[in-house]
């Protein structure tokens, strides 16, 4: 099976190279057969890389330790359910996963490309193939998942204990798919320029793929935060880790892109701006992959020490310089159809949204690369810690969320100040009342006061929009409120799907504010039978069960929790120590409600029978996790295609 995998890897390199070169040659010289053959090669790549992937998975299932990658990331004791995780746990497997995902996305993109972009599709295909060939060649020469060991060991080294968590089934695949998926809208944008399609032909396909990739990245980021919260044992969810940042930055720029592309779709504006946005997103995605593999900055995420850093750095340079060079080459052809008519318009609100998002991305980038720059210049590595990001990004994020509430209320082209004030009146009043109530309750911290006020304002604005829209349909079409609500949603899916996503953002804001500003943490060492008070909870250490397994020792810590003097519940948290990795992973015991999470995680079991425990009360963090499915629902609605007769019907 290893031979099959290795052979299909080389087949894929040949097919991808042929497809990329053939697409361009066929287009330039008008050889239709070559174009069709190149297109079919794109579809074949899915089959070939699918066989390659299946070969590696098969090697894991059969525990073939003659293959170095299998031996390095699994062992006989590993549960079979972790085979999927082990597949992409290391450099080699993750590269294969990325290549396979890109081949699937490229095939879908080519197959489903609308007629408007077909004349320039060969150029877009070539760009996708260039990226795919890079990953395949890196795999073949520097990180071959099918490389054999000189001597087959009796057992493997096992899977990284931190990966044995439900979140790991989705977090890395979603993030990796998201990062490489940015190639698709970039390919359509740059391919369009190369083919001299300099109007809005690529907008719809760019919007759709932008949304899909945005959702993948958002899901990956949220799942990663959830994983960190439940398994890393520190009770937090975001550390501004360099590799976290490296996935966050392209997501920020992509968020800007999916908003500004709406302006191009509706008004034919921001043509140059959107090309720049997608190029920046693509560069940051390559940077993210560089950070993950190059290892210039240590992180819990990076694939250990890796020699691939320079290769990815060179490709990052190539992937940044070439798209921008093409952009500047055809710069003069990218004039927008219309100019900005008023600063008080939805177009300028979207522009402000983009600038704020780029600002957050730039601050994050600066904080991420500063250690490298300081080391280069001063030979001393100065790390940027969480307070920098919180203090600089925090206000920008609050301003962005406030704009999220105001922007949808501003009409296209031009708004009058009086109409806008009328639209903002009730949201503003509700936000102000919330601030007053919280201040009267004794909350004096500025950020949460403003943040909760903004959350109230945004939510009220969205609800008012829905109510007004339903009322408008009722008076026009005599529909009942439920029918009006459903048809309002279907009549303008991008808009109302976007409102649902905005609600999800508000939910994340609630969770972040609560857990960041109002959490209570206590680190204690408890002897058996000893109690400690945290907030209105009392925690009594009952005992620890020790279970020895073949690859780990599990410590199950039982505590009895009382609340307000009454028995509340028994909770069991777990700490697994893996001797072969000299590493422990934890499973926090969490009682989660919309109001607060009560969180217990053991840190260390002492020789005298006492146990080190971290106890946390995290208000409202539940809202952050529930926001995930809401993001998904909103994005699916926004993506759902309009039927042409729906567009004509009410216009």
């Amino acid at each position, binding site marked *: 099976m290893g*031979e099959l995998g290795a052979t*299909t890897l080389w087949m894929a390199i040949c097919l991808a190279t042929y497809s990329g070169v053939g697409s361009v040659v066929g287009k330039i010289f*008008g050889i239709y057969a070559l174009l069709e053959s190149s297109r079919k090669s794109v579809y*074949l790549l899915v089959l070939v890389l699918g066989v390659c992937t299946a070969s590696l998975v098969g090697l894991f299932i059969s525990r073939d330790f003659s293959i170095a990658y299998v031996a390095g990331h699994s062992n006989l004791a590993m549960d079979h359910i972790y085979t999927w995780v082990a597949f992409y746990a290391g450099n080699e497997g993750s590269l294969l996963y990325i290549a396979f995902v890109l081949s699937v996305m490229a095939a879908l993109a080519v197959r489903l490309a609308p007629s408007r972009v077909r004349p320039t599709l060969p150029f877009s295909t070539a760009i996708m193939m260039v990226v795919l060939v890079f990953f395949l060649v890196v795999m073949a020469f520097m990180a071959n998942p099918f490389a054999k060991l000189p001597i087959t060991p009796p057992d493997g080294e096992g899977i990284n204990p931190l990966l044995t968590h439900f979140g790991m089934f989705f977090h890395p695949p979603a993030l990796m798919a998201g990062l490489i998926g940015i190639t698709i809208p970039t390919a359509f944008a740059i391919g369009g320029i190369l083919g001299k399609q300099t109007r809005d032909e690529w907008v719809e396909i760019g919007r759709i793929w932008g949304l899909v990739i945005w959702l993948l990245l958002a899901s990956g980021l949220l799942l990663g935060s959830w994983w960190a919260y439940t398994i890393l044992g520190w009770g937090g969810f975001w550390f501004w880790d360099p590799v976290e940042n490296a996935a966050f930055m392209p997501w920020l720029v992509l968020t800007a892109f999916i908003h500004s592309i709406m302006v191009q779709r509706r008004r034919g504006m921001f043509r140059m701006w959107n090309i720049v946005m997608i190029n920046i997103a693509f560069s940051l995605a390559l940077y993210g992959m560089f950070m993950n593999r190059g290892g210039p900055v240590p992180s819990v995420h990076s694939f250990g020490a890796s020699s691939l850093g320079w290769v990815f750095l060179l490709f990052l340079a190539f992937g940044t310089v070439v798209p921008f060079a093409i952009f500047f080459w055809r710069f003069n052809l990218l004039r927008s159809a219309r100019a900005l008519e008023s600063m008080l318009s939805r177009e300028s609100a979207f522009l402000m949204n983009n600038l704020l998002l780029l600002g957050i991305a730039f601050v994050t980038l600066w904080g991420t690369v500063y250690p490298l720059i300081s080391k280069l210049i001063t030979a001393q590595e100065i790390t940027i810690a969480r307070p920098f990001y919180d203090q600089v990004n925090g206000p920008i994020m609050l301003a962005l969320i406030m704009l999220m509430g105001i922007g949808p209320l501003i009409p296209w082209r031009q708004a*009058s100040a009086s*109409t806008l004030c009328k639209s903002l009146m009730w949201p503003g009043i509700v936000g102000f009342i919330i601030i007053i109530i919280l201040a009267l309750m004794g909350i004096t911290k500025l950020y949460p006061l403003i943040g909760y006020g903004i959350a109230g304002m945004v939510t009220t604005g969205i609800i008012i929009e829905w109510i007004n829209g339903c009322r408008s349909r009722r008076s026009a079409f005599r529909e009942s409120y439920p029918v009006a609500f459903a048809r309002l949603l279907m009549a303008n899916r991008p808009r109302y799907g976007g409102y649902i996503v905005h609600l999800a953002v508000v939910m994340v804001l609630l969770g972040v504010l609560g857990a960041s500003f109002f959490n209570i943490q206590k680190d204690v060492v408890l002897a058996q039978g000893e109690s400690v008070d945290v907030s209105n909870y009392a925690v009594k250490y009952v005992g620890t069960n020790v279970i020895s397994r073949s690859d780990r020792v599990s410590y199950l810590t039982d505590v009895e929790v009382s609340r307000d003097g009454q028995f509340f519940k028994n909770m069991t948290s777990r700490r697994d120590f893996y001797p072969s990795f000299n590493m422990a992973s934890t499973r926090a015991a969490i009682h989660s409600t919309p109001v607060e999470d009560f969180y217990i995680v053991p840190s260390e079991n002492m020789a005298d029978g006492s146990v080190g425990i971290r106890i946390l009360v995290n208000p409202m963090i539940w809202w952050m996790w529930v926001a995930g499915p809401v993001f998904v629902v909103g994005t699916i609605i926004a993506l759902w295609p309009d039927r042409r007769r729906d567009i004509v019907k009410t216009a």
Partner: protein
Amino acid sequence: MAVFLSVLLGLFCIGVVVYPFFKDRYFQNLGDASTVPGDSASELDNILRSIRALQSEYGMGNISEEAFTRELDQYRNDAATCIQHMESGRFSELETDVENEIAIARLRLQKSEDKPMSEPESF
């Protein structure tokens, strides 16, 4: 087994890749970037969406009647221009389709009679 599967897969890939070169050769309009079919139709869809959004905004009271009337007139003008382009484009598309069919018929006739013919003019 692995060698057999590899060879099978390789042969299949080669077959799929070379097949287009041996198919009957039809004249295919590769499509000029400046004459994209469906371009005007998509633009019309965008204009219709804009009109719908405008009506929705007016119905919810987010814009004044004067602004609504002004913008609706502008969108209607844009739609009329778009429909005009579509009508003229449809006619030239019909001409191209008819000429393509003639070229295909000529090629088929050439094959059946096995007579050398002059190449069809490029369109």
